[in-house]
């Protein structure tokens, strides 16, 4: 229990509105991290991290445990404030100055390592809550689903193959189904950038294969950043891979390039 909250900046309360409808991506880069440093009580989680993700790119991040993958996602989503460095979403949105909610509304979706869905709500309702719309208190009080919104939910239900469970409480789904539901919720948010933390953990081979298909079809329309340990999965989807080690980028390139990199081998196989 504690406290990444200590890194939270105090923000005004009324952030229940979309910050920017569109993201300025003139230079073709959706995410820019430059010189990011994060430390917890002396432990350096990220040191001088630089990372760029292009529009429509599908990027895989790999790295041993403790390499700083999750902390990096925390920085991008506003959960952790970097001690120094810059984080830009597109050209104009400074992620270090935005709250988690503002970042989510600006179009960054995140899937947690451990699938988190609203267990007491049905699958349909989970998707309904995630849907991109006005998310202020007043709007929620008055909200009625329009036909188009309903169609969109049905569409996503079909995409994640959960049509048969639309009224089931999400808590009763299997682990893999929860993973899909969470991905479906991300889709409902219509984000520009999706951060996916170990999306295929606990999935069957068939499910993994299906997920790979799904991600490939998502790329181009969205930008994706996938953290994954399953090299087979990485091989199946990624054209570009980044290796993180001890809080900074160790290598970047195609999977073959990276796998051939001496330093990567050293890190993975030990000295």
């Amino acid at each position, binding site marked *: 229990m504690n406290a990444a909250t200590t890194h939270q900046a105090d923000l005004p309360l009324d952030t229940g509105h979309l910050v920017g409808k569109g993201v300025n991506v003139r230079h073709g880069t959706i995410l820019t991290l430059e010189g990011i440093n994060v430390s917890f009580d002396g432990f350096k989680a990220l040191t001088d991290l630089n990372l760029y993700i292009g529009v429509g790119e599908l990027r895989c991040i790999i790295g041993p445990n403790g390499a700083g993958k999750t902390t990096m996602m925390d920085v991008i989503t506003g959960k952790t404030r970097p001690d120094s460095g810059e984080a830009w979403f597109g050209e104009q949105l400074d992620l270090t100055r935005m709250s988690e909610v503002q970042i989510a509304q600006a179009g960054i*979706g995140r899937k947690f390592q451990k699938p988190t869905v609203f267990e007491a709500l049905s699958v349909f309702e989970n998707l309904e809550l995630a849907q991109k719309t006005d998310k202020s*208190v007043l709007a*929620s*009080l008055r909200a009625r689903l329009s036909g188009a919104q309903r169609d969109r939910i049905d569409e996503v239900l079909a995409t994640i193959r959960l049509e048969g469970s639309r009224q089931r409480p999400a808590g009763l789904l299997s682990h893999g189904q929860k993973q899909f539901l969470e991905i479906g919720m991300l889709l409902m948010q219509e984000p520009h950038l999706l951060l996916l933390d170990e999306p295929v953990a606990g999935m069957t081979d068939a499910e993994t294969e299906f997920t790979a298909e799904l991600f490939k079809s998502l790329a181009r329309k969205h930008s994706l950043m996938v953290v994954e340990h399953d090299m087979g999965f990485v091989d199946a989807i990624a054209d570009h891979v980044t290796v993180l080690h001890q809080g900074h980028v160790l290598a970047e390139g195609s999977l073959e390039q990276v796998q051939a990199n001496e330093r990567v081998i050293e890190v993975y196989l030990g000295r």
Partner: protein
Amino acid sequence: MNMPMNPMPLNNSLLARAAGKLGPRASLGLGLLVLAVLVALPLLHLLPADSALHVSAYTLTLVGKILCYAVVALALDLVWGYAGMLSLGHGLFFALGGYAMGMYLMRESAGDGLPAFMTFLSWTELPWYWYGTSSFLWTLCLVVLAPGLLALVFGFFAFRSRIKGVYFSIMTQSLTFAGMLLFFRNETGFGGNNGFTSFRSILGFDITATGTRAVLFLCIVALLAGSLYLGLRLARSKFGRVLTALRDAENRLMFCGYDPRGYKLFIWVLSAVLCGLAGALYVPLVGIINPSEMSPTNSIEAAVWVALGGRGTLIGPLLGAGLVNGMKSWFTVAFPEYWLFFLGALFIVITLYLPKGVIGLLRKEKEQ
């Protein structure tokens, strides 16, 4: 923030709604029946005392009191059962509403002079916060504003710094404790330990007259019905689903783009205002308001009503408030020395064996 504060049964609220959907006609019928009984009670009270159907003032006051508590339980359930924030300070909001009404009643019985306790403190004029309290309309505003504003300010700070779980409970408890200490002081200007008593009239009507009592009772029934309707609408709206989501996975909700603070604040203030209204009706009915209503014990007891009845449902808290208070009324006469044992054992048994409360028990039987 993995405070496992709400291991709520997964599908509780779903079931609740399922039950509602399965037998809408039956529950509506039953609801109307209860409502009819509650409306009939004050009318029967108007019958002459020797009539067989006469409802005594004692019964009416007792049932009225329990209904006021039921509103408190419902209000607490909105923040605890639905939004997952256990408040141990709802007694404060209840008492504030009561005090606001009490101020009016004191002015009414003091006439043009100062309330007796002020004369006693040798005060020669009303303190500023008493201005306007002789007006019933302003009093109604106060009944809403006093608890509402306090909840707004406290909630704003608390939710801004993400105080939740146990911390939130302890902070609310301290808040009501501080309020109690403040109101105990005679110089605070609310009658100190004695609080307000000896009310004479309300809007010019004798407060002990059967007619006044009946109308008061009807107001309480209306408040309860209104709160229930409001609760039902909220629970069925998207707002209600966001609250449930908030309770179960606040972080997920934030990454979905919802700002939890606004949601929490809204339901928190609404709940406080409902409590205040219940307090305002409670005071003329029982004839006294004093700081012990703010004692942390009272607020804990309210949490027990909710837990007993079944949180996260709308009917549960009402049942809980009724059961505990009914038992209290009976036990304090039947076993004056031992009733605390019953009450204590009840809490233990409920938490150990009935995590979903009485409602859960009833539903479980249905499923079999």
